[in-house]
């Protein structure tokens, strides 16, 4: 999906640009989050990246009330017609179907981000300007750029251009993807990708579908292909107690990596579940699928992670670690 801005220039639909991330690839990195995803995992903590379209998030608690502010109403071409306030005067809803031109002026104008626009169109030039500003930090630490999402490969044409520009600028590149995409899109992007980070969330196709909305066949096939292409690969499993933390599943994952990939991966990281992003669900008026999920105490999941990592290391000889703060030993 290639987005274009009003001027007809190709743009990426981006939800966030984060400078100084240190856990998604080696060194100090700038991470770009693309909007739109092929899956919807139950525990997703970035719901604003799921829909491939721009969205408005509403945070009534940040609103200063219509009476005191109303900058949004003044900014909207349709004024009060579309922007609704509750009894206390707090912004509560925007009627996008009532003739909203999707201009985002209400969000742009809101001084307190009570109306937040998720998804900004960014040109290559704009992104490269931000990316390049931290070049000296990348050089010192072996860092670079990580494209993430959502599913970055949904915007593969733009992503490819961006990665190409990074490589031309001498900046190493990393793509974090779920790989539930056509392999030709993947390969198109790989031409300019130094490191791939992907997940194996479950080995059983049916369970995988229950957890993420999609089966895992395409993903596993793409992982095989990634290894065949000789791409450096980091595999992650978000360990969700009660869903995929059983030893059987982890052994199957280990077998797959050993038998199909020859164990040829940079690292295997087992990540804990964290209840995050709930306020974003609220702002999108979307229910959090894991609302009722009770995560175990820290000591329980810590033991889980360590035990599973140990199985992967000892039985499958995989470079498995718990968490993402261990140093990623890879030069890009």
């Amino acid at each position, binding site marked *: 999906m290639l987005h274009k801005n009003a001027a007809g220039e190709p743009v990426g639909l981006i939800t966030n640009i*984060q*400078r*100084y*991330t*240190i*856990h998604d690839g080696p*060194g*100090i990195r700038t991470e770009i989050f693309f909007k739109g995803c092929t899956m919807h995992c139950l525990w997703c903590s970035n719901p604003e990246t799921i829909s491939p379209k721009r969205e408005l998030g509403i945070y009534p608690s940040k609103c*200063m009330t219509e009476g*005191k*502010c109303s*900058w949004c109403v003044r900014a909207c071409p349709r004024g009060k017609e579309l922007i609704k306030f509750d009894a206390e005067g707090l912004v509560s809803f925007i009627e996008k179907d009532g003739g909203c031109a999707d201009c985002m002026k209400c969000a742009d104008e809101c*001084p*307190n*981000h009570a109306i937040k626009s998720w998804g900004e169109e960014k040109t290559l030039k704009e992104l490269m300007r931000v990316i390049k*500003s*931290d070049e*000296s*930090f990348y*050089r*010192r*630490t072996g*860092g670079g750029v990580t494209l993430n999402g959502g599913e970055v490969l949904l915007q593969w044409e733009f992503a490819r251009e961006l990665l190409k520009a990074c490589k031309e600028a001498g900046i190493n590149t990393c793509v974090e993807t779920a790989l539930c995409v056509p392999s030709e899109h993947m390969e198109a992007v790989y031409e300019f990708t130094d490191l791939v980070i992907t997940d194996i969330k479950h080995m059983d196709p049916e369970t995988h579908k229950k957890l993420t909305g999609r089966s895992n066949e395409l993903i596993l096939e793409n992982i095989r292909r990634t290894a065949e292409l000789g791409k450096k690969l980091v595999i992650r499993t978000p360990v969700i107690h009660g869903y995929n933390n059983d030893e059987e599943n982890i052994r199957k994952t280990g077998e797959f990596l050993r038998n199909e990939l020859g164990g040829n991966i940079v690292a295997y990281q087992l990540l804990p579940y*964290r209840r995050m992003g709930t306020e974003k669900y609220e702002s999108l008026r979307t229910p959090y699928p894991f609302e009722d999920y009770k995560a175990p105490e820290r000591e329980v999941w810590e033991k889980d992670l360590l035990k599973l990592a140990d199985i992967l290391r000892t039985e499958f000889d995989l470079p498995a670690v718990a*968490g*993402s*703060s*261990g*140093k*990623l030993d890879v030069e890009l």
Partner: protein
Amino acid sequence: MIDEKYINNGPDAPLAIEPYDRVWGVGISGLTVNPSPFPRINKMLDWLKNLDSTADSQRAMIVTECDKKYAMYPQNIKWALTLRELYERVKINIWDDELIVGELVAPPNSAPIYPEFSIDWLVEEFRERPMDQRKNDRYVVSQDVIDDVYSIQDYWKGKTVSEAAIASYTEEELKGSHLGKCIALESLFMYAGVGHVTANYERLLSIGFGGIREQVLEQMAKLDHTNPDDNLKEEFYKAELIMIEGASTYIRRYGLLAREKADIEKDPVRKAELERVSANCLQVAEGPARDFWEAIQLWHIATNMIIVETNGHSVTYGRFDKIFYPYYKKDVETGNLTREFMQELIEHSFCKMHQLRKIRDTAAITFSSGTIMGGTALDVGGVDENGDDITNDVSYMVLDAHAHTRIPNPWMGVRLHENSPKEFKIKTFNVIRIGTGEPKIFNDKPMIESLMRNGKTLEEARGYVGVGCVEPSIPGKTYGWHDSGSFNLAKTVQLSLNHGRCIDCSESCERYSKCAGAGLSLGPDSGGLDTFESFEDVKKSFEIQMEYWCGQMIAMINKIDIAQQRLKPLPYLSLLIDGCIEKGMDVTRGGALYNHSGPQGVGIGTAADSLTAVKQVVFDEKRVTGAELLDALKKNWEGYEPLYAYVNSDRVHHYGNDDDYADEIAHYVMATYCKNIENRPTPHGGTYMPGVFSVTNNVMHGTVTAATPDGRKAYEPVSDCLGPVHTQCCSHDTCGPTAVALSAAKLDHSRIGNGIILNWKFSPTAVSGDTGRDNLIGLMDTYFEHDGMQSQFSIVGREMMLAAQKEPEKYKDLLVRIAGYSAYFVELSTELQNDLIGRTELSFD
């Protein structure tokens, strides 16, 4: 004696008793029981932590008596005689387990009293605000001491340095002073002494006081007694000789006392220790230090005597690894002392620093609490005069010593440069990650450049030490008056937006009748937001106010300088600073080779974001008129809530986000401050140098500054040091640490001759693991590559600080970074605790 696990046996590892990559934990601060491998040190730490701070009147009483007795002598001789008598008469002690002896003419944790600078405030504190009732910086003062102080108050009336300085202020100067509207806080060196100096330890240790006597006699022999200038020099030299006697006497007395104690000691181990302590003192009373132990003994007690004389803080201990490595090397080679024992001595010396006390008044401890003595600075690492790295075993041992003591003394600095060993950086950052706030790190390149821009040669500049908080200084050659004032940039912006008037000008101000009430304004009327037609007008107005108020501050600092010269010569310090003996001139009058005065600009972030907001909101966007913004400030944003949120939001350019729009204005504010300070002459024969750090004065300056256009409400702290703004509403830096580093580095650090502080606050999770460590090192390496001058770190989670506020008794050892120093969190004033909690916490989970 020492646990086997501490012995470092790796073949290529730097030699210290800990491995260079030992990890002590992340964000755990001082909350570890028995941190030292040496039982003696743990015992001393426990003892000191449980010992109340007290005050001791011996110094005050002897000084008062001598002031009368020696009144007929010239000032410098009078003071030399006074100090000599003090050292002859004051009660001395040697405490259990001590290997290094010497006190501050008062027992451990007890503060001497210095009536010659000021005494009325102390009497007022005793009368009005008993110090044992204080929440923080608590002192338990005996009635005898209180009575002693009362008894001498009348004698000192009209004789003190502070009274002399204040009497010389004009009405115009007073209005912006600490007695007026606090635009410039100039009074630090008036109620107490100057300090902020480092002795030439290498000279002292190598020739001893006896050798210095020879140097004095040699110069004296050259005098022409018919030359009036030489007649004055003769007085100076006489004072120096008396002073040497005093110093030697004090040290010798400890030697004799140690021998007495040894004679009656039953435990053979302790007896041997006391015998050695006695021999050490008797040797260094006049002679040079011959080994590490003698050297650390002399270094310690010689420094104490600077404090006893000057009543200054930030009396700095120099470059420890450079001074001590020759002794260490020889002792290891000859087998005279073991590495482990020298480690223990270093840790012991830290405990000795931790016993020093200085009483401060209620205002000072509200804003600058928990400083204990203050400024016990000591550096390791860096380059030698040829530019080669000097890092050695001792550098590592000093860092380990902090990990083993976790007390806020010394204020430790690590000098880094392009060729600092990787192992040394790992050790440094592992200590930093403990979370006590120690050490701070300096970047050699801009530090050295700043010194060269202020008249030092490259070779000399390479030998710098960070005095006190961070002030670049050539050790043993400089009388720097570092930290001589603190200038409120935020308030000056306000005055420039409101016709030279305070934003909160009202009849309730005690100056009202002679200011606005009389149709006048506090500063010159340089226009206001209601009259400016362009941002250029704003800048013009700001420049007028800056020139005016910086001038007022300089005038007052000059007058304090003159009062110090007239009333409080420093014959002892003059022995230890190069130039004084050669010139035959007291250090206060310009005897040192290098002389400076360094007042700080405070609130650069607030000033920059305020001017930026005016530029963007009023002139670029025309979202509000200047008059409306002025009204919003006067109403403390009431009725202007959307505008308040807007200027605090990322829609408005803010310093600290690698955003040229705002960063250029920050640069402009700093350059304007520098222009008005740098290279002005000081009365003691040097030049002014600007600094950019607030220590904790940002909280104090905030309390006299009404709302500012950056979205700060009235009386909140202004921004700290070089850091971005954080208001009650939010932090203005939203792009992470690389952006903060790049913004800060856009300012010209080497122009800041008196030093810079940049505070970083990381959540422990952001710097945990090898990934966290190496990326933190990489972040700092890159900041330094961009010529950032200094960094210091707080790595204690917000949750832990909030928990400590709730249950202080459980967090007594929670040591946190404040500004130039670290202090126990629970001993800070609530104002300062909240300021710390509010600083942006960079977390990357």
